[in-house]
């Protein structure tokens, strides 16, 4: 049979059927539950732990669907900013304390004061957690914009076997730590002392060292001149640079970011790293245990002992699509039982008093983190996140300049001079626009 040619009418008929079919398919199978979005830029381990909490919540509430929008930690800030600036904010926001002032200034965070006033668990949080909320402006002048989800801080991870072979203990001072790195480095056996973060995020490891060597967490003097090029700061950066230059870290580590760093530790190339508590879980998942892993407080520098403390805060977006659903999830998630369950699942530090007595947090691998996070005598690590140029500073400029230094193309002094030059211009622009009353770092107690 010779096929008939399609007429225009046939074409219209076919087209119409296709469109109608698509419409029917498009309408069918939809989920009529309200969807609450939760932005979670805390890294894979914690994002997954939060997602498991969400699953538990959804099992209780069949009228709500909660969707976690995960993001890697180092892209979280940019992604959240883009979502808010693009007019499509998430309903619930997980943010670090460092971002809080900025997002509040943008009007992106909902005021929860009236809800909090009648919330039955308002007395559950530890003093440390509430103080951190205040210093991050999540709680300010009695008004509540967010509550503490978890405390975070850094401690040192060691390959215990390497220390045992040399009869070493975790170092308490930077001088002792340098000597320890020299002892455990054995290039003939492909062993290096330190997993150095030479690429993105390296700033988070060397800046606290500069604070330890200078004894201050200030960045600018009273006249808004950047002080990070002082001799003491240069001394601190030289200390970090020398670890690489002297071969105590792998040569490839000049290109290492977070993933390579953590992998470099658990895979057995490097003897120690400093990291957040959730990396304990990553190490255990990769076969490390009490016989191969040890954690200890960060070593103290010559002029200060610094804690890289931060806090993760849960807030509700002022542009939430489903404020009621968001609050229902928020209320459930912030109850002490859920916070403890989440903290254990992610192996992070709890923010509620009932966690303080829990042996899970007070013993074992998490103990040094707990000590660092609750010791009020330590100098608090800080950086001027209010400067709009900080994104470019940390993500582009610092990486470039620190790599030049690690490769021996410029000295630590030249590196800091170039960074200070950039910051002077950024600070001047900020002062010109917003006045000279700039945010200041938390004072050492």
């Amino acid at each position: 049979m010779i096929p008939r040619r399609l007429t225009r009418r046939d074409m219209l008929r076919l087209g119409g059927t296709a469109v109608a079919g698509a419409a029917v398919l498009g309408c069918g199978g939809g989920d009529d539950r309200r969807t609450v979005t939760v932005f979670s830029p805390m890294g894979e381990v914690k994002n997954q732990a939060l997602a498991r909490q969400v699953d538990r919540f959804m099992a209780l509430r069949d009228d709500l669907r909660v969707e976690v929008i995960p993001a890697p930690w180092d892209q979280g800030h940019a992604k959240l900013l883009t979502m808010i600036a693009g007019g499509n904010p998430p309903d619930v926001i997980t943010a670090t304390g460092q971002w809080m002032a900025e997002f509040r200034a943008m009007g992106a965070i909902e005021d929860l004061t009236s809800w909090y006033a009648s919330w039955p668990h308002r007395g559950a949080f530890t003093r440390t957690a509430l103080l951190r909320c205040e210093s991050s402006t999540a709680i300010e002048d009695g008004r509540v914009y967010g509550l503490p989800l978890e405390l975070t801080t850094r401690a040192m991870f060691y390959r215990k076997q390497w220390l045992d072979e040399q009869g070493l203990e975790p170092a308490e001072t930077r001088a002792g730590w340098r000597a320890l790195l020299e002892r455990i480095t054995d290039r003939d056996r492909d062993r290096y002392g330190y997993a150095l973060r030479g690429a993105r995020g390296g700033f988070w490891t060397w800046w606290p060292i500069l604070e330890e060597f200078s004894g201050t967490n200030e960045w600018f003097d009273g006249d808004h001149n950047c002080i990070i090029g002082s001799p003491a700061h240069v001394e601190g950066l030289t200390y970090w640079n020398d670890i690489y230059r002297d071969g105590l870290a792998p040569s490839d580590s000049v290109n290492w970011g977070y993933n390579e760093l953590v992998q470099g530790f658990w895979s057995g190339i490097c003897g120690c790293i400093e990291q957040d508590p959730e990396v304990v879980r990553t190490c255990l998942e990769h076969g490390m245990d009490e016989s191969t892993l040890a954690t200890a407080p960060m070593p103290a520098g010559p002029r200060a002992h610094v804690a890289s403390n931060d806090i993760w805060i849960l807030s509700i977006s002022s542009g939430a699509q489903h404020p009621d659903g968001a609050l229902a999830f928020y209320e459930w998630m912030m109850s002490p039982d859920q916070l403890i369950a989440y903290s254990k699942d992610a192996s992070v530090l709890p923010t509620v008093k009932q966690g303080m007595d829990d042996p899970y947090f007070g013993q074992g691998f998490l103990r040094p983190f707990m000590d660092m996070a609750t010791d009020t005598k330590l100098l608090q690590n800080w950086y001027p996140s209010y400067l709009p140029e900080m994104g470019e500073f940390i993500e582009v400029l610092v990486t470039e300049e620190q790599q030049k230094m690690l490769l021996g193309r410029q000295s630590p002094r030249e590196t800091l001079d170039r960074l200070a030059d950039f910051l002077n211009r950024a600070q001047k622009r900020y002062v010109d626009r917003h006045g000279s009353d700039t945010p200041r770092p938390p004072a050492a107690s």
Partner: protein
Amino acid sequence: MKKAEPYLLLTPAYLLIAGFLFYPMATVFLLSLREYQLMDPLNTPFVGLGQYAAMLDDEYFWRSLWNSVVWVVVSLCFQFLLGFCLALLLNSARFRGRGLFQAIVFAPWAVSGFLIAIIWAWLLNGEFGLVNDLLIRAGLLDEKVGFLSRGETALLSCVLANIWFGVTFFAVMLFAALQAIPPSLYEAADMDGATAWQSFWRVTAPMVKPAIVITVLLRAIWIFNWADLIWVMTGGGPAGASRTLALYVFQKAFLGLDFGYSAALGVALTVLSLVFTAVFLRITRFHGDEASI
């Protein structure tokens, strides 16, 4: 009404092109005239060509541009030469097991850039990389080299991965062009007493020239704009040694959050691509009607 019909029928196409091509381009250009930092979205003053002036003073821009030139030229030369050789080999009538070989040769083109980057980053790893191991065993190296962590070798390492990936593209396209040459031309050349060399230059080369021009042009633009391989292998480092212009645009926009400046860089990238295309087509005296692929 009759006169308007063609225009009416073309309108959807024009609207699509306007909406999906010209509108974003115009938006990017307008953005490049503003100081727009995502961390300060309420403060976006109009600065005219200020971002472009800043670009001329930006040492990272010039360094990235130079890296882009090296990245494109070296990658392209080797991809083309090796790809052409492969295509000739596959086209050879005496070549046995051609089907199998063809499938193997074309495999890299099916692999994602991200995976290629991961594979090559491991191969060139300074501690446990296969390349280091082989070179040391062969006695060509005394000790391990961090190919990706040395300023002198980082970009060339990325180029090497790119060559491996792109040879296939040229082999596929040029092989198709070679297959389209009528055998009668070679028979005629043979009867006229042409040597193999003369057959190549007088028959093969002119017949595949349109394919060569188009593939080289397309590939040059793709490589110029391709940033993910380098991003995964080295992140543009160390110290910007492997940062190309396309990667710099990405870093400025999504790491530095400076959308105004990155828009200006993006416009520069587009203008450079257009200039290259115009010059290349002029030099090769290429006209669209020659195209055989």
